[in-house]
């Protein structure tokens, strides 16, 4: 870890955002089961991939185009826990859409987090277009599309990669491969082993990284971002990971994967692995950890209370923002 730019402080901050995200995630599930949140999508298991990638970017300035899985990403990118809860509970002050957007369709215009539209892989082409704009405007921004491996079966994924490679655009295609698209295992999704293998067909590097290791993820994303900013074009990154909980609060994953498989995967829980590593390196102490856990608890409680007390959107505002002018 000598010259990757990650100081102990940054690593602690990475850990904090991973742990915060896990705690927010747990709370969202409880709110759903209590009937207080309509539907919940989770980043549970994906935290290292998401937080590691966020830290490698110019946070708040580079464009990111997340998908519903990316709670840890948007927290690490600068969305506050209160903003996240306002969005999850569809409140009028949701910074993304005033409670219009589907839960977990993260967005924050000021932070250059582009909200998406449910239809998987559509954000891939947006990232390509944003990168083309950056190239033309010379604003130094990189665009990053985040997506699941299942969505790489869609035409948009292939169209986005091809376009971006032809024009050498400053874009990163960041795949979070958890092995399933709802119930469908990746072997029914593609006949190749790795999503990264597809890069070759479009003329860009394809990189596989351990998605449970935030430092490794940070390093490959940093390299891809440098490459993009140098004008050397796009990179496809595949972070191998696992989701520990059902696809969403409407899914029951017992129908398609065994408890043993999930237990086995949990041995590589990115949060636990990173905690152990930071302790071993003397960066995280038991005392510091306890303090952090208390802080996270307070922050999550505060965000929940704040959002639950916040007003719902007024029906009269429904016609706002359908058109810009009439």
């Amino acid at each position: 870890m000598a010259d990757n730019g990650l100081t102990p402080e940054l690593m602690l901050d990475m850990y904090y955002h991973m742990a915060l995200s896990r705690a927010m995630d747990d709370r969202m599930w409880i709110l759903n089961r209590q009937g207080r949140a309509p539907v919940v999508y989770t980043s549970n298991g994906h935290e290292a991939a998401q937080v590691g990638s966020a830290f490698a970017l110019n946070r708040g300035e580079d464009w990111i185009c997340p998908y519903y899985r990316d709670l840890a990403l948007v927290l690490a990118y600068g969305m506050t826990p209160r903003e996240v809860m306002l969005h999850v509970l569809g409140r009028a002050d949701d910074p993304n859409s005033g409670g219009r957007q589907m839960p977990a369709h993260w967005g924050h215009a000021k932070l250059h987090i582009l909200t998406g539209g449910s239809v998987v892989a559509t954000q891939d082409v947006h990232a390509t277009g944003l990168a083309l704009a950056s190239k033309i405007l010379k604003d130094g921004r990189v665009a990053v599309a985040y997506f699941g491996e299942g969505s790489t079966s869609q035409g948009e994924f292939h169209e986005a990669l091809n376009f971006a490679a032809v024009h050498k655009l400053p874009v990163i295609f960041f795949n979070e491969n958890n092995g399933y698209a709802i119930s469908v295992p990746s072997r029914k999704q593609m006949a190749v082993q790795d999503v990264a293998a597809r890069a070759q067909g479009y003329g860009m590097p394809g990189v596989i990284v351990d998605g449970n290791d935030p430092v490794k993820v940070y390093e490959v994303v940093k390299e891809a971002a440098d490459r993009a900013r140098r004008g050397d074009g796009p990179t496809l990154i595949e972070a191998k990971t696992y989701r520990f909980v059902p696809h969403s609060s409407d899914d029951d994953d017992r129908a398609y994967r065994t408890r043993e498989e999930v237990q086995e995967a949990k041995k590589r829980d990115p949060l636990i692995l990173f905690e152990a590593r930071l302790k071993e390196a003397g960066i995280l102490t038991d005392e510091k950890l306890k303090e952090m856990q208390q802080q996270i608890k307070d922050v999550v409680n505060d965000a929940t209370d704040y959002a639950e007390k916040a007003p719902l959107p007024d029906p009269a505002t429904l016609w706002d923002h359908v058109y810009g002018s009439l």
Partner: protein
Amino acid sequence: MDVVASLTMIQAINQALDLALATDERVMVLGEDVGPNGGVFRATEGLYEKYGGQRVVDTPLAESAIVGSAVGLALGGMRPVAEIQFLGFIFEAMDQMSTQASRLRFRSQGRHHVPLVVRAPYGGGVRTPEIHSDSLEALFSHLPGLKVVTPSTPYDAKGMLLASIRDPDPVLFLEPMRLYRAGRQEVPEAWYEVPLGEARVVRTGDDVTLIAYGPMVPVAEAAADSLASAGISAEVVDVRTLSPLDLETLTQSVTKTGRAVIVHEAQRTGGLGAEIAASLQERAFLSLEAPITRVTGYDTPFPMPALEDWWLPDVERVKAAAEFVLHY
């Protein structure tokens, strides 16, 4: 003796698929999560175990490939029943639906035809916002060559699905999500078909016709109940086949009552209600006692859960429209 069972709509759909797979070996089911998972709404539960992965296929996550390859399957002699997980995702397959499946018969002078069924859950009322709750029937009713149908009861769901599978043309079979488990009805276990192209008079009445389909039929019925207690006799017609429309049944009813209220969930502008109203005034103009009125969703994208109940047409809005035409 007919064996019947009391089924929900989703069970009736499951039974129809099971029966079609058992009866005709050309029938197959394809879509996302339809295999071991049994579909996200459980429409295909148990079918993978019974008929195997060759006939119940988990496809890659790509709607254009699902519908496009189903077109190929149909041309190649199979009887594919494709599932689109939520109707809103059919936009990804718009080209295959609108310029391929629907036009092959016409383009080939009838040498080719596409006996394809595309099933899709649609409509609101279940707190799954925006694209997941879209009602897109008008977009598809605008396409000659494609049939668009939607049941409102378990009995019709099974009978219309079997009729769709046997139909020689591509059929978009729209399943009202909020009626999947809303109630039970006696459904025969054997094969039966509810003919496409026929509307159903749900209840007869003399003063006003409430025209509805899919998820709005129970709303229209409840409104009719409520009007009845105020001494108003409302006829309720379930359109069932949205394209081509059964204008005869609709015209007959409106000629009798002289008044019509059309109810649909979809946005008002360019909705199917406009088409029905225009056709009815052409056919029943001299019988009309009042303008034909629509009760619809508003002209915005489908809203957030907090505003959903307010956005969707309900009994009160239907009653108010009925009273408007009655006192015009």
